[in-house]
């Protein structure tokens, strides 16, 4: 994140708002209650890959991809603008409840989609260079590679950093806002790139 090193202090004229920096907040950065659910989903995916079940691979790939795209687009295009118009205190409260869930949800959806998708392509023979849909699959690798770079290099660091900031006795609202902006914008960008993936995948399905 090239912008993170810039000064973060709020303008001297800024008026403090009640509750904007109230803390420390007691919450789990990784919600433990969700870990068993994630474990079940991941084990199910491993079984789907190990058994090469066409239906299970299709389910994991399509359901994971649809949810991943929908969540990204919702965050970037719906929730982002709403958060931008909320008071700082409300934004902090929403962030405190939203971001821990994202820590578990997004990596799980990504793992489901990519793991099952690669095995599905292998199972259907689309990986071989002679397959009619091979070039489209390579295009999808490139799109997913860009998404992965944005997600791992910008989105996830912002997600984790904002959670640690919120747990401080005196969280810095300007820093939280800036990190949340990075998170929401990158989620929106990856969501829009997912639309490109949808175009490619529907093309692959129509060829295959």
């Amino acid at each position, binding site marked *: *994140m*090239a912008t*993170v*090193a810039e*000064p*973060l*202090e*709020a*303008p*001297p*004229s*800024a*008026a*403090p*708002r009640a509750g*904007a*920096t109230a803390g420390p907040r007691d919450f789990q950065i*990784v919600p433990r209650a969700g870990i068993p659910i994630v474990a079940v989903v991941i084990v199910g995916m*491993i079984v789907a*890959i*190990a058994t090469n079940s066409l239906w299970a691979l299709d389910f994991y790939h399509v359901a994971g991809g649809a949810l991943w795209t929908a969540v990204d687009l919702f965050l970037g295009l719906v929730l982002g603008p709403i958060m*931008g118009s909320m*008071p*700082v205190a409300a934004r902090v409260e929403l962030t405190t409840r939203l971001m821990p869930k994202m820590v578990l949800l997004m*990596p799980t959806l990504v*793992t489901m989609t990519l*793991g099952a998708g*690669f*095995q599905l392509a*292998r199972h259907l023979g689309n*990986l*071989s*260079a002679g397959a009619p849909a091979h070039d489209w699959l*390579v295009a999808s*690798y*490139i799109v997913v*590679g860009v998404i*992965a*770079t944005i997600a*791992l*290099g*910008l989105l*996830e*660091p*912002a997600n*984790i*950093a904002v959670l*640690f*900031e919120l747990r401080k006795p*005196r*969280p*810095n*609202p*300007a*820093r939280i*806002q800036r990190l949340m902006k990075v998170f929401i914008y990158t989620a929106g960008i990856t969501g829009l790139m997912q639309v490109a993936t949808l175009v490619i995948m529907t093309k692959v399905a129509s060829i295959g």
Partner: protein
Amino acid sequence: MASETAPTPSAVPGDGPLPPIQQIAVASLVLIIAGGIYTAAHLPRHVPQGPTIVLLSLAAALVVANAVLLSRIKPFNWRIFRQVAGWVALAYVVVAGMLEYVFVYDHTSGTQLVILTLMLVVFACNIPMLLGFSVARFQEP
């Protein structure tokens, strides 16, 4: 949005000049992902190893350079860095282990398996460092 914020002290390492650790980590990530795309585009045929070895070597060099730059930051909250990087490393060891299983399951072997394994190692070192730094930079030393 900034006009709504309360002024708070921000004299923590993240507010001052820091080495470009995040940018270097992302560059390393790009190289590894490019190597992965190149490999996946050729599978299950033989993958020409020259480009992947170059990409892997550059990515590994960047991770080493990042570790050196990171070790020189003073003051720095190493406790938080270790806490975040440790848990992320655990998660990525699991992810890398699953991918390694898939490679072996799909009958990848020989030099190709070695290269892919080393790519996973670089990946599993890079991401914990990136996330640990992203959090620790904003913590009081």
